[in-house]
């Protein structure tokens, strides 16, 4: 079979290059400096994250991708303040962050909507926490719910919604606080392929219109390339930054670009970084011990 001739993922068209140049002139939103995270485990100390450094610009969309065990969830939890780093610093708009706070919104894979609150009250939660009155909170909440297209469900309870709708509520709830950065931890991981594609478009639509920087964790290469301005690739054991890739696919994105040469080139690069061609040493024998278990006289001799 002939392989497609793909351009280098480093090649950028004039427009794309120009856009990245302009982006890099924006102020820095999030800055991660020498971040280190170690865990105590029964096998001794494990380094989950080793000397992570990167920055994101205001209103940038960054995807974080990496093989399992690269510490991408740990990273986002540290950014959210749900875990403390062993050493290093996280700066948001130049100020160090400690502990969770409403300036960093978080969307979890498991929705984490409050089941005892209606959609409206869920979105009002953060607003009330930051001291807004009931009336103001309600008014703003309804606007956010409208933004994610769920006005009809404002009074429904979370269990009455589908997975995609729940995640839209979770996004509205996080955005209602008007966070500086929106952290998303594999938010669409539990959704079926169709809903996921739809949610990706919604998210891009929202991102375009709102003043927010997005850091999005995923293990889906297509999703990363489709959504991101830049993709932060981590490697595992220990979790380290492997590359910060500028996605050469022009913005605004649309599903047709999924097969464009730039898209495929970027995806190929990610594939190579995350699943490097394995050197078979015979020791890491993670393969099936297959013997032929089909009768010699079976009607189907071979499936090929």
């Amino acid at each position: 079979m002939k392989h497609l001739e793909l351009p280098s993922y480093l090649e950028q068209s004039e427009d794309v290059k120009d856009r990245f140049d302009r982006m890099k002139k924006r102020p820095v939103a999030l800055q991660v400096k020498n971040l280190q995270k170690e865990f105590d485990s029964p096998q001794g100390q494990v380094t989950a994250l080793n000397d992570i450094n990167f920055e994101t610009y205001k209103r940038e969309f960054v995807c974080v991708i990496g093989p399992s065990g690269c510490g991408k969830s740990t990273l986002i939890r540290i950014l959210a303040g749900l875990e403390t780093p062993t050493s290093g610093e996280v700066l948001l708009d130049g100020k160090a962050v400690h502990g969770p706070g409403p300036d960093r919104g978080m969307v979890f894979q498991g929705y984490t909507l409050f089941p005892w609150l209606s959609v409206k009250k869920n979105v009002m939660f953060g607003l009330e926490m930051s001291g807004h009155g009931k009336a103001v909170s309600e008014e703003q909440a309804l606007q956010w719910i409208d933004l994610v297209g769920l006005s009809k469900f404002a009074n429904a309870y979370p269990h009455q919604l589908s997975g995609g709708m729940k995640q839209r509520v979770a996004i509205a709830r996080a955005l209602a606080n008007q966070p500086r950065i929106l952290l998303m931890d594999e938010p669409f991981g539990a959704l079926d392929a169709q809903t996921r594609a739809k949610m990706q478009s919604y998210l891009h639509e929202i991102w375009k219109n709102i003043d927010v920087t997005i850091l999005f964790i995923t293990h889906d290469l297509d999703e990363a390339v489709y959504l991101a301005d830049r993709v932060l690739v981590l490697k595992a054991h220990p979790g380290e930054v492997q590359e910060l890739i500028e996605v050469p696919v022009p913005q605004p994105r649309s599903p047709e670009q999924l097969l464009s040469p730039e898209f495929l080139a970027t995806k190929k690069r990610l594939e190579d970084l995350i699943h490097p061609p394995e050197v078979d040493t015979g020791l890491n024998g993670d393969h099936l011990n297959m013997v032929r278990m089909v009768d010699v006289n079976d009607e189907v001799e071979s499936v090929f």
Partner: protein
Amino acid sequence: MMISSLFAVRKKLDSKHRIYVSILSFIVPLVIWSLISYVPFLWHPKVEISAPGDVAYFNEGMLIDREIFDKEVEIARSESRIIPEGRPANPVYLPAPHEVATALYTAFTTEPKRRNEKWLHESLWDSIQVIFWGFFISSLIGVPLGILAGTYDVFSKLFEPFIEFFRYLPAPAFGALAVAILGIHEAPKIAIIFIGTFFQQVLIVSNTTRKLDPSLLEAAMTLGAKRLSLLFRVVIPGIITHLYKDLRILLGWAWTYLIVAELIGTSSGITWFITQQARYKNFENVYAAIIIIGIIGLSTDIVLAMLGKKLFPWKKGMAKA
């Protein structure tokens, strides 16, 4: 419906069959009881004398062991005297269903034997009050402590080791102590219910609190919730439905301590009624009283379950609690 579908593993029956089978769960014991009571050759170890004949110590209506009766019949026959007559009967402590059914009504209308004694409904009311206060005071302290222990590790370590120890001490063992401290009337009885409920309650509530999905707390923190609002806006509403269910189960336990509690100090309430009626050998009244306890317990639970549906509308149609 195929028989096999009745026995499908972990599959729900359709609603019609569920009702039938639920009714059956009451019918089966009732049928067994009726068979033993109304079918003369089943059990019936006694003979109720209908005509004493020439046996000097037989009286009409007397209950006699079957062997003794048979022996007397044998003797009377051999000495050609008048043969006593009787029919098979069950012991006095096993009244027939219809007798108990009647007693369910007559127990309320039977006047107490002595002037200072109480009617059944008064006894029942006393019991309900003892249960209520015991359970109420226990919950008033136990639920907050349980929630604290489930939320903050420091309270968990502060309360739970001692409570773990204390809950193994049988509540009735404190009877004498309770009387010495609180006198002989209602107070020591309430104390026994309290002791029987409280310690389990703290542990169960703290356990329930710990089962709250921690990611809900994390989500709330990223939305800006801090200490107290986490407790009052997330922890408590997050566990309230489970808490309510725990309390329903614990209320059932409180009833089991009632009988012991009421024997302490001056016997009172439904227990007093039961022991008194047993003493008079009015066993149908004893059964009636026991059944009434069951009915009160079950109907409270059903009412509370229905109330729960009103109180927690988000539970409606939720797949599993």
